[in-house]
C-alpha cells in the first residue's frame, strides 16, 4: 500500500460524494415531476402508450405494472436472443442462443444483474446487444429507480393510499436522467478511444501474427449506460478490462464514478423528498463508510501480493495476475469493489485471480445485500429495509416504540423485512451447496481446493444479489447453472422488490407522527453506526461459515505455502 493508492481512493470518494448532492436534488425533482425540459417527448410517449399522467397507483398496481413490463421485456429479449441470426446488425452471422442460455441471459438483463454465461465476441450480434441488451440496461435501471421513488413517497405524508405512477416514473427517469447521462459520458468515452461503429470485425494485418479480425462494435454507448445504470454487462468478454471498453486510467476513473453516483444520490434525493436532508445524509454515510472499508481492504490485500509468486522470484509489487497495466493496483481494486458494492458487476480486473482476501471482500460486500450503495434504486430500497430493522432493534434495546420518519414500524413490516433478508440468504447458500453436491456443479469449477468453493459461492451470491460479476473461471453455461442462476436472479430481484413495495404501501397508509421525546433519532453518527452494525450482523453474519471454508481457508493455506 502506498499513500498514492490511498489518495486515489479518496479522490474517487470526493468526486462521487461531491456530485451526489446536486444529482440527488435533481432526482428528487424528477420524482416530483418538476423536471420538464423534454416535456414534448414525455407527453408524446404518454399519448402513444395510453398513459394517464395524473393517475396515482396503490402499491399493488405499482408492483403489477412493474412486473408486467418486466415480463413483456423479458419475453422480447428472449425472442431477440433466440432469433438473432435472422435479425439485422449481425454481420458475422452469429447463430441464435440455445433456449437455456437465452433464458439465463434474458433473466440476467431484465433483473439489472448482467450475469454473462455467454461469450460476447462469439455468441451475440451487435444487433442483439444494441436492441436487446442495451435497452434493458436503461429500463431495468429505470424500473429500480422508479421503485425507489415509490418507497420514498411512502414517508412523505399521512394516510397515503398511493405511491405514484410507475409509467411516468419510468419514463421521466429514463428521459431526464439516464439518457442525458449516458450520451454525455459515451461521448467522453469515444474521445478516449472507445469505438462506436456498426461493424463487428475489422481485418488487421498484424506485424508478426498475420491477418486477424479485430472485434469491434457500438461499444461506447452501451458502456456508458452499463456503468451509469449499475448494469455491468460487458460488450466484450473481458468487460471493463478490455481496452475498447476502458481505454485508459481516465476512463477507468470516469466509469468508476459513473457506477457509484446514482447510488449515492438516491439517499440525498430521499432527504429532499421527505424534507429532512439529514435523513438522507445519514443513510449515505453508512453506505460510504462500508464502501471505504472495502476499498481500502481490497487494495491492501492486492498490494500485498501473492507469497507463492514472490518465492518463485517475482518482484514484490502486488498481485498482477488478471490486472491491466494501464490502471494499476489501487484503481483496479477500487473499481471492482465499487462495482460489487453497487450490483454493477463490471470488472476491470479478474476477481478469480485476486488474493483470497482481495476476492473475499467483494463477495462479502455483495452478501451484505447490495446496499453500499447498491444497485440504482434497489440499493436504496434495500437500505430502507435495514433502516426499519435498525429502529426495531434499537427499540428493543432501549424500550422505545420503533418509528421511522414518523411512521410506526410494526410486526407486519418487520416480518416482511426479515423474510426478504432471510430468503435471499437461503437461496444463495442452498443453491451453492446443492450445486456442489452435483457432478455438473463440480465440473463447472475452474480451480481446485477452497478456491473452487469460493467460485460457486460467488456465482450464487452474485446472481441472487443481482450483481453479475463472477469468479469468472466457472463454466456457467450448463443446464444446472443456466436455469438455477436464472431463477436466482429473477427471485432475488422480484421476490425482494414486491414485499418492499408492500411495506411501503403499508407505511404510506399510516399517520405520520410528530417527533416526540420518545422518538429514537434516525439521523447522526449513532444511527449511522447502528445501521452499519445491523447491515453487517443481519446481512453478513449468516455467510461467515461458508466464507470461512472458502476464501478464509484459502488465505491461511496460501500462507502455509499450499497450492492445489
Amino acid at each position, binding site marked *: 500500500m502506498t499513500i*498514492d493508492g490511498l489518495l*486515489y481512493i479518496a*479522490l474517487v470518494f470526493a468526486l462521487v460524494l461531491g456530485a451526489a448532492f446536486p444529482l440527488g436534488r435533481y432526482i428528487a425533482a424528477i420524482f416530483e415531476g418538476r423536471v420538464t425540459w423534454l416535456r414534448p417527448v414525455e407527453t408524446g*410517449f404518454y399519448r*402513444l402508450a*395510453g*398513459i394517464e399522467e395524473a393517475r396515482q397507483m396503490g402499491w399493488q398496481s405499482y408492483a*403489477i405494472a412493474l412486473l*408486467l413490463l418486466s415480463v413483456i421485456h423479458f419475453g*422480447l429479449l428472449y425472442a431477440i436472443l433466440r432469433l438473432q441470426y435472422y435479425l439485422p446488425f449481425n454481420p458475422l452471422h452469429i447463430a441464435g442462443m440455445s433456449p437455456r442460455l437465452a433464458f439465463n441471459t434474458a433473466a440476467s438483463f431484465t433483473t439489472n444483474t448482467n450475469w454473462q454465461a455467454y461469450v460476447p465476441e462469439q455468441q451475440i450480434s451487435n444487433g442483439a446487444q*444494441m436492441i436487446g441488451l442495451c*435497452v434493458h440496461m*436503461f429500463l431495468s435501471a429505470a424500473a429500480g429507480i422508479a421503485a425507489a421513488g415509490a418507497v420514498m413517497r411512502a414517508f412523505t405524508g399521512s394516510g397515503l393510499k398511493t405511491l405514484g405512477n410507475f409509467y411516468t416514473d419510468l419514463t421521466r427517469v429514463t428521459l431526464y436522467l439516464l439518457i442525458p447521462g449516458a450520451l454525455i459520458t*459515451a461521448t467522453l468515452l*469515444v*474521445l478516449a*478511444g472507445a469505438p*462506436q461503429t456498426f461493424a463487428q470485425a475489422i*481485418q*488487421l494485418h*498484424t506485424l*508478426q501474427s498475420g491477418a*486477424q*479480425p*479485430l*472485434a*469491434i462494435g*457500438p461499444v461506447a*454507448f452501451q458502456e456508458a449506460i452499463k456503468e451509469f445504470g449499475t448494469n455491468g454487462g460487458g460488450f466484450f468478454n*473481458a468487460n471493463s*478490462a478490455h481496452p*475498447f471498453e476502458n481505454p485508459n*486510467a481516465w476512463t477507468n476513473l470516469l466509469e468508476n464514478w459513473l457506477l457509484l453516483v446514482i447510488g449515492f444520490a438516491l439517499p440525498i434525493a430521499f432527504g429532499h423528498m421527505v424534507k429532512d436532508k439529514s435523513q438522507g445524509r445519514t443513510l449515505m454515510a453508512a453506505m460510504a463508510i462500508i464502501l471505504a472499508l472495502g476499498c481500502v481492504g481490497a487494495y491492501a490485500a492486492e498490494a500485498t*501480493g*501473492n507469497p507463492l*509468486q514472490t518465492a518463485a*522470484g517475482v*518482484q514484490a509489487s*502486488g498481485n*498482477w495476475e*488478471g*490486472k*491491466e*497495466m*494501464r490502471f494499476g493496483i489501487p*484503481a483496479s481494486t477500487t473499481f471492482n469493489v465499487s462495482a460489487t458494492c453497487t450490483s454493477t458487476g463490471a470488472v476491470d480486473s*479478474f476477481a478469480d*485471480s485476486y*488474493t*483470497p482476501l482481495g476476492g473475499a471482500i467483494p463477495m462479502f460486500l455483495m452478501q451484505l445485500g447490495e446496499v453500499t450503495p447498491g444497485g440504482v434504486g434497489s440499493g436504496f430500497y434495500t437500505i430502507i429495509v435495514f433502516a426499519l430493522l435498525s429502529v426495531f432493534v434499537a427499540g428493543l434495546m432501549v424500550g422505545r416504540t420503533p418509528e421511522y420518519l414518523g411512521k410506526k414500524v410494526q410486526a407486519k413490516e418487520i416480518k416482511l423485512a426479515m423474510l426478504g433478508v432471510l430468503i435471499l440468504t437461503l437461496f444463495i447458500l442452498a443453491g451453492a451447496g446443492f450445486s456442489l453436491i452435483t457432478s455438473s456443479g463440480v465440473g463447472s469449477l*475452474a*480451480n*481446485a*481446493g477452497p478456491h473452487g468453493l469460493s*467460485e460457486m459461492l460467488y456465482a450464487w451470491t452474485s446472481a441472487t444479489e443481482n450483481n453479475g460479476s463472477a469468479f*469468472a*473461471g466457472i463454466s456457467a453455461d450448463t443446464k444446472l447453472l443456466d436455469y438455477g442462476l436464472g431463477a436466482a436472479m429473477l427471485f432475488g430481484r422480484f421476490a425482494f422488490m414486491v414485499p418492499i413495495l408492500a411495506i411501503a404501501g403499508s407505511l404510506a397508509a399510516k399517520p405520520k407522527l410528530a417527533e416526540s421525546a420518545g422518538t429514537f433519532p434516525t439521523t447522526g453518527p449513532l444511527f449511522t453506526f447502528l445501521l452499519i452494525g445491523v447491515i453487517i450482523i443481519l446481512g453478513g453474519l449468516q455467510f461467515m461459515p461458508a466464507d470461512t471454508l472458502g476464501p478464509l481457508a*484459502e488465505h491461511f493455506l496460501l500462507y502455509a505455502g499450499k*497450492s*492445489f
Partner: protein
Amino acid sequence: MILRELRPAFSLVVLFTFLLGLVLPGIFTGAMQAVLPWQANGSLIRQNGQAIGSALIGQNFSGAQYFTPRPSALSPTPYTQDTSGASNLGPTSKVLLASVKQRVAAYLKAYGPGPVPADAVTASASGLDPDISLQNALRQAPAVAKARHLPFTTVTALVENMAHHPFLGIIGTDHVNVLKLNLALEHLPAS
C-alpha cells in the same frame, strides 16, 4: 387489473426499444463517425494503407528484436484480436504457479539476472493488454538494442521518451505501449 396495465406496459417496451435500441444509437454512431472517426473505428494504426493493429489493443511479439508484451491468457493463440479474457487461475492454483515459474526462468534467460517485474510474468485481465511497465521495458532494452545492433542508450532513450506517467502520481501508472514502441524501433536509424 392486469388488463388495464397491458397497453401502457407493452407500449412503453416497444417505444423505448425503438428510441434506445435504434434511434439514439443510430444518431450517436453517426455523430461519432463524423466527429471522431479515428476513435470510433478502433484507433487503427495504418502502414502502407493496411491496418496493422489498434493503438489500444496489444498484439503478440516474439524474438529478441522486439519488446515482448505481457503474457496473454487467450488460448490457443495469445492476443487473438477477436477474443478477450483472463486466466481466471486462483492464487493457490498449481497451474498458475507452474506458468509463473516457467516465465520467470524464460525472462531471466532472455534479459539476464536482475529483478523480474510482476507484469512480465502474469497474464493480463483482457488478454489484450497493450502496455508493459516502464521497468519491464527498461529491463528488455539492452537485449533489444543488441539484437538490432543499436546503441543501448538510443533504445533506452526511446523507451523513456514513449513512457506514460501517472497524472499527479495518482491516476495511471508508469507504462509503455508495446505496439507503438516496436513500431518506433523500426523507424530508428541504424547505427
